[in-house]
């Protein structure tokens, strides 16, 4: 629903440069998959978009104006871990969204508004297949159920941008495929712009409309942290016409960590279905 423009983004921790010269423009409704070797700064990039960390240089514009340097309801987030509030049951986690949004100084809505919030929350639980778990605490939900709850909670916040930080990294392969379907459906329904960090090349190609590879282009053998990573490859995908296995193999080779055959298998199965 909102455009993202990143221009000349830089991030350093002391002398160590993590990101440099990152330029990217995403149109509203795009689904960006961010891949790259471990420690290449793609999660840092996501946290800058979120506002949890501040860039050392450059601008990030969401919609029409530079982002506020703190997390706001404009940008929703789903993390890999700690993605829901452990002290609230499933339904309470979803009600919390309305409580925070319009609960005033008590952080809680009452009366008619609470009833409508409850209806909305129950509908959302139903939508993500958690109606049977409405009164359970996250500790007694499986990893996949917790991530479904986290996505539901984030969507109730109606963000313009959805940020996903390896949201399915800790899930079993079977559950992961289910989650892919759910996410694709929700993305089609809501039409927000999505930025997802993932280690799984197959997942990146399957879900994204665009795959961005983060890598270092400059190396200083005497001082490895002198240069940061940037976007080295930007591949636009056509949803109807899936990526060729050559593209997948190429990206897998660039990232260097994932096995290209496994990645291709995931994409191929997606192409058939």
């Amino acid at each position, binding site marked *: 629903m909102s455009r993202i423009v990143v221009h000349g983004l830089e991030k350093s921790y002391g002398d160590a440069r993590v990101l440099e010269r990152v330029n990217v423009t995403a149109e509203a409704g795009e689904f960006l998959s961010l891949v790259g070797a471990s420690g290449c700064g793609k999660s840092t990039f996501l946290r800058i978009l979120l*506002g949890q960390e501040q860039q050392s240089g450059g601008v990030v514009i969401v919609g029409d104006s530079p982002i506020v340097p703190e997390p*706001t309801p404009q940008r*929703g987030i789903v993390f890999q871990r*700690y993605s829901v*509030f*452990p002290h609230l049951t499933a339904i309470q986690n979803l009600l919390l969204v309305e409580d*925070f949004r319009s609960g005033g*100084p008590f952080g809680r809505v009452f009366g008619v508004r609470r009833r409508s919030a409850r209806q909305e929350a129950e509908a959302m639980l139903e939508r993500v297949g958690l109606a049977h778990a409405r009164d359970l605490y996250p500790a007694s939900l499986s990893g996949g159920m917790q991530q479904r709850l986290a996505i539901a909670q984030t969507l109730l*916040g109606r963000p313009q941008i959805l940020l996903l930080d390896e949201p399915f990294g800790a899930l079993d392969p079977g559950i992961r495929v289910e989650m892919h379907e759910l996410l694709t459906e929700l993305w089609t329904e809501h039409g927000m712009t999505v930025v997802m960090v993932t280690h799984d090349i197959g997942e990146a190609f399957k879900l994204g409309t665009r795959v961005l590879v983060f890598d270092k282009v400059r190396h200083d053998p005497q001082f490895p942290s002198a240069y940061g990573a940037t976007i080295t490859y930007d591949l636009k995908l056509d949803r109807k016409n899936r990526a060729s296995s050559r593209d997948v193999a190429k990206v897998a080779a660039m990232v260097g960590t994932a096995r290209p055959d496994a990645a291709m298998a995931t994409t191929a199965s997606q192409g058939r279905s």
Partner: protein
Amino acid sequence: MLARGIGIMNAVSEAGGEGTRPPQPGPKVRLRMINARVSRGGALFLGALPFLVAAGAYLIASGKRLDANPADKLLPSPAQMWSAFLDLATVPDKRSGDLILWVDTYASLVRLFAGVAAATLVALSLGIAIGFIPRVRAFLLPFVTVVCVIPPLALLPILFIALGLGETAKITLIAIGVAPVMVRDIANRVMELPPELIAKAQTLGGNSWTMVLRLVLPQVMPRLITCVRLALGPAWLFLIAAEAIASTEGLGYRIFLVRRYLSMDVILPYVAWITLLAVITDWLLVRLSRALSPWAHPVEAK
């Protein structure tokens, strides 16, 4: 290991083959000490054993001394202690007409709970502020850290001089004695909250205050109750110290008063009574924690 392996092979061949006999129970395996489980009855017996040993040792020693000298005051028999305790609990004092045990208990508990409650309120508000708001942390954390290492009993004379010998000084001693550690503990717990949760709450529209109400407060509540449980030990210490020095009633006052007459038949039941009160308080706090934060006690709640 070998015996176990053969046992498994037997079981497999029987399951897959012709015999319908149930598999033989394998030879009894000696587990490592850390893996040997304790049955319910066994746990009850083992738990009761130290109590029984202590009571038995006391009874034997007391019996021997009383045999040698029936007027001995150092190790009174259980009957003597019970009658002394009953006297204090049911017979009005000749001079004041009070039931001494209940007057003492009431006075001590009021001081204890007032002191601990004040410390808890301070710990909750300061601890959350220090842990959650960087500016307050920069402002107060060094001060609290220094205050933490002052021995509270060294402050007692100052409190008596500044606040008089009344209740205020005693309650203040308890509060000052336990609050700094609690403040630091709560602040640490708040700082340990996963940054992901705080970021997520902000993306859902939480502001600093509503996040305190809906995120930080419920998350630190179990830790706060644990803190109070741990603080109750030092709180009793400060209470009894303060009562021993300047008081006219209270459990600590009574113990130190009758010490002059070597009245072990009063001191020992009083110590047992204090222990009982402390155990009950602790048990109630555990129940409270389970009622307030069922999410933090997933196993016990089932």
